[in-house]
């Protein structure tokens, strides 16, 4: 579908309200088993408000905010209907009219004051310069510092010197997902400023969410242009290349049966993620690898997505519990993922789920 044919949010919800064809892919629908928490019902709710049959109330906005903005519905739609964009547009409208749920306003205040929703700490601006930057973000700084340090060590071992950027600064994805468009655009502009100040021509990212944000959210949702001449690459891809060129070697070990959890947003990027799996096989063995049921193109999010961990923590927990149960069903004795927010969220539930969760880069760095 070309940009010219792309349906508007109203056209999208008009078409999706009576279409059930992506139901099988929706993670929230799956873990809640509620008709009202499925793509067609979100479209129906938005359309019903537009037609005056429902109003935005705490109840209806609660339904609106139950979508994970994970993109799986669109990724599984043969006609590529941008329902996540329509839901985000509806949330933006709700915010603009001051009808959003209180937690959204609280997140907005935090993001505006500290550029992150986790801690009352402003981002670090090191002023460093370099050609390759590592995007740390708010989750990397506040939830996954170990992963950042490990990724940096692995890159260094591979002969790649990186400059950390945006330490403690949100990319704007969370704000965008929950309808805080202006805040998201402001955060995006600051990220781009920092990239420019660093002078980097390559920005490395840890998780699929950052990739999705820079490639799609900035230009399509926020109208923000990524700097020309600056490429975005996944850290895992860089490490696999280094391995192929014999610039990086990992000492193999048998650490038991493991499974890789595709990070949130991975499915919607349209790219399979062989690189983390390749690295894991090199370090922890191919025969020990298991695949989750919800993987790759159908990879369900961990719960730390679309603001669910703030707006619907019970759904976020169910999603992470489902990932842990999936790992257990696959026979894994440990799980591994590469997005700091996913790692933090899954670890937070893993004591109850019983399967330990490790960071991809922390696990790999131990095998240097």
């Amino acid at each position, binding site marked *: 579908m070309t940009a010219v044919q792309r349906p508007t949010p109203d056209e999208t919800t008009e078409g999706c309200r009576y279409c059930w064809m992506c139901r099988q892919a929706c993670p929230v629908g799956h873990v809640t088993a509620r008709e009202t928490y499925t793509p067609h019902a979100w479209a129906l709710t938005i359309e019903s408000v537009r037609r005056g*049959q429902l109003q935005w109330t705490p109840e209806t906005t609660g339904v609106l905010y139950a979508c994970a903005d994970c993109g799986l519905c669109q990724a599984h739609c043969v006609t590529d209907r941008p329902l996540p964009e329509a839901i985000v547009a509806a949330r933006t409208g709700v915010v603009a009219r001051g009808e959003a749920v209180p937690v959204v306003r609280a997140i907005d205040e935090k993001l505006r004051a500290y550029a992150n929703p986790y801690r009352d700490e402003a981002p670090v601006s090191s002023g460093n310069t370099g050609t390759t930057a590592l995007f740390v973000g708010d989750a990397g700084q506040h939830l996954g510092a170990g992963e950042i340090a490990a990724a940096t060590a692995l890159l260094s071992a591979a002969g790649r010197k990186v400059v950390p950027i945006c330490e403690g600064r949100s990319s704007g994805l969370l704000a965008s997902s929950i309808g805080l468009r202006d805040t998201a655009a402001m955060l995006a502009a600051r990220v781009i400023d920092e990239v420019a100040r660093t002078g980097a021509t390559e920005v490395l990212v840890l998780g699929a969410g950052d990739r999705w944000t820079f490639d799609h959210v900035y230009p399509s949702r926020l109208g923000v242009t990524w700097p020309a001449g600056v490429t975005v690459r996944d850290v895992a891809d860089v490490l696999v290349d280094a391995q192929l060129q014999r610039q990086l070697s990992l000492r193999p070990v048998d650490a038991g049966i493991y499974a890789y959890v595709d990070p949130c947003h991975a499915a919607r990027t349209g790219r399979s993620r062989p690189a983390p799996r390749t690295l894991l096989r090199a370090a922890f063995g191919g025969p020990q690898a298991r695949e989750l049921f919800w993987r790759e193109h159908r990879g369900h999010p961990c719960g730390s997505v679309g603001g669910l961990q703030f707006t619907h923590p019970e759904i976020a927990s169910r999603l992470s519990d489902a990932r842990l149960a999936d790992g257990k069903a696959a026979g894994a004795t440990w799980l591994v993922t590469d997005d700091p927010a996913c790692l933090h969220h899954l670890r937070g539930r893993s004591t109850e789920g019983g399967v330990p969760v490790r960071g991809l880069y922390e696990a790999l760095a131990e095998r240097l």
Partner: protein
Amino acid sequence: MFKPLTEDVRRSLEAIVGSDHVSTRDTDLLTYSVDAYWMPQMWLDRGRRTPPPDVIVHPGSTEEVAAIIRIGNEHQMPVIPWGGGSGTQGGALPIHGGIMVDMKRMNRILEINDRSFTVRAQAGVNGGQLEWALNDRGLTLPHYPASANCATLGGYLAPRGSGTISTKYGKAEDLVMNMEVVLGDGTIIRTPEVPHHASGPDFMRLFLGSEGTFGIITEATMQITRLPEVRLFRALLFKDVATGIEMGRRLMTDRLEPLVIRMYDAPSTKLLVKRVLGYELDGAYMIIGFDGFADIAALQEQRAMRIAEELGAQDLGREPGEKWWEKRYDFYYPPHSLKFPAMYGTIETVATFDKIEKLYNAKKEAIEGTFGHLGVGYIGHFSHWWRWGASLYDRFLLKEAPQDPAEAQALHDKIWDVAVHTSLANGGMANEHHGVGLKLSRFMPAQYGAAWPLLERIKDAMDPNRIMNPGKVGFERKSS
């Protein structure tokens, strides 16, 4: 008369399933008041709401389903099962309010048996997810309805659904081994382990097509098969529907075991095949397919092509056939799917080979002859074939329905009256695979004639208080 929800009933339901699994929220009431049937969607589209359920419950076990049904009996409230909500006949609409039982929490796959090639699962499992689980093991449940992504296993069985490859593998009802059902009085029963035996009547089949009016299917065991080594597709063009029907008849009566025979009539070819597949063709477009071991499928196809040649078909080659297979569900996605302000109905039917062509012509004439002046069009394709006949998947279409919803519904019902009466008068059934639901409920006594009172007596045995999905499949509540 049925009774409304009381606080007492709500508390009882919460005691059964937990308060998190009981809802009377407005968004839920709206969502569960509309399924894939044109009628409630049209009322909603015109700014009006159709009757909602009183309450929605989400049971997690068969015992909970049974307890909910007992509450319905005790308090004289309708109990309506809901699977994926993707039925086109209004079978899940709570037209008398009541307790909506959403089965989707009961979504576990209980056993995949790769020796007997069966899968046992709870009725609320999503069809697409079940298929993914089987595909991961190189297996498949060969029931590929257009609704596979959204429908549940119970929804496959309750209305006797057909899938794209039913011509080789049968309908959902042909694939089921056994079921667990909660009857209308709350009794939990299991049908025998195997479907073919001589140990008394096959009462399992009573629940196939009962659409929740006899009870709620809570679990089923289905036959599965290996994913085939190959699937071969080919497209053909016939000068007319009659020759295409003869092609299908020969394929079936020669027992060549085609996976699929799909023939679009000339107007469908012009409209749908062009819109979705991009081919501009004049005539009846047919796809034939064979699957299984490569050498056997190739041989079957070779024999089929000999018949096609004898009948003067134009061989369009593999690519248009493969493209159709790849895009076979695209017809049902927006923007290809039908949408408002249009009025439409799939008036599909089934008949034996000696009647099917006449039936097609009679329906075309009846719809276009009676309603053509209003702009109502008629298209059809032949999609599910047996050794004795075929289904005619035909539709009426009106680009702009009357704006007044009552007027729109009256016209809609009038077209359906003509369509179904024409089917019945020409040796067809009211329906082949979408089920009866609310839409066709009023035609059931006429369709079954002297046999209908027997079905009524069976209903009374299964559901003495007539609380199960009232107003569907011809079963109304008797006035007391």
